[in-house]
């Protein structure tokens, strides 16, 4: 389980107790990527017995996930699961997602908040953006994707290898990654999950960043189609 975290000392104790309630450490290794936090995020995770990789400075959440995927690839993990450390994702959904991942023989499984009735308020403008990116991802990948911005994902070994070796985006990793994986012939599936709103702190996508987020996503989705084919990335 890969958990990107940046200054999450307030949310982390709650997330850890949620994980401990539902996940056995024998079956799942938990790796927290401390993305250059200035607070005690890394120490709290270490005290909880998580593996911790610390970035010497803040690289962005997508880079933190990428570090986790590189780690998973280099250490031979068959499955990597990305899980937010701000309390949005529920650990109790994990076993269900893993079971469905195995049953469906998917390469990527996304926990979609739009396949169930939304459990928290998403601002209208953000919802429109999410729907737009999901539409683009579905259209370009030819696979049904309702929640392209969900960070609750499970990747199989093939996807881990491809993502670990690609020129991964550093700030946001949404629809563009899914389009890239589908270009490599990966099977992308979704299952409904409930998500919570973050407990403490602010979302990374707010104010002026929201405009950049929309711009960056649309640009990267289309550029993904013009860039190097995924099979060439793996051959390198």
């Amino acid at each position: 389980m890969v958990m990107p975290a940046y200054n999450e000392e307030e949310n982390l104790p709650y997330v850890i107790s949620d994980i401990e309630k539902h996940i056995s450490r024998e079956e799942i290794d938990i790796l927290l990527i401390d993305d250059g936090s200035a607070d005690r995020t890394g120490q709290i995770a270490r005290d909880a017995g998580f593996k911790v990789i610390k970035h010497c400075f803040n690289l962005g959440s997508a880079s933190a996930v990428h570090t986790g995927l590189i780690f998973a690839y280099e250490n031979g993990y068959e499955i990597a699961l990305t899980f937010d450390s701000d309390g949005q994702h529920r650990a109790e959904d994990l076993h269900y997602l893993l079971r469905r991942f195995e049953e469906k023989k998917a390469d990527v499984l996304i926990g979609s908040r739009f396949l169930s009735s939304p459990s928290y308020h998403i601002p209208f403008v953000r919802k429109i953006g999410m729907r737009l990116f999901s539409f683009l991802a579905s259209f370009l990948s030819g696979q049904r994707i309702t929640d392209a911005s969900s960070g609750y994902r499970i990747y199989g070994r093939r996807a881990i290898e491809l993502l670990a070796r690609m020129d991964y985006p550093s700030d946001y990793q949404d629809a563009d990654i899914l389009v890239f994986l589908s270009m490599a012939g990966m099977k992308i599936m979704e299952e409904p999950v409930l998500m919570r709103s973050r407990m403490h702190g602010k979302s990374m996508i707010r104010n002026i960043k929201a405009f950049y987020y929309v711009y960056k996503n649309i640009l990267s989705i289309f550029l993904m189609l013009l860039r190097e084919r995924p099979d060439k990335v793996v051959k390198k």
Partner: protein
Amino acid sequence: MTFHQRIVALLLSLLVTAIVIELVRRRKLREEFSVIWMLTTLFVIIFALWEWPLMLVRRIVGTEIAINALFLLAIIFLVIINIYLSMKISILTTRNIRLAQRIGILEEKISRFLDG
């Protein structure tokens, strides 16, 4: 260009050349980046010494007076160099990220190794 303008252009070019050489000597500017500035000063020197190259440029870009053609060239050059530097910064940023990721992974490996 008037004689006075030519002298000023020549002196400025020589000054920029000297600054560039000094920065390269002190290893504060890489040879790779000095090329573009040296070429620029070379062009300015050519335009200051001979009139026909600038007249040729004026005819090509269609300006009324030669100095406007020179301004246009300067703006185009500055835009190109800005794009080039943005590209270099992007490459460096990506490399920085990859290095920081590798350091993080290696530190984790070392601490695992030390913990036995």
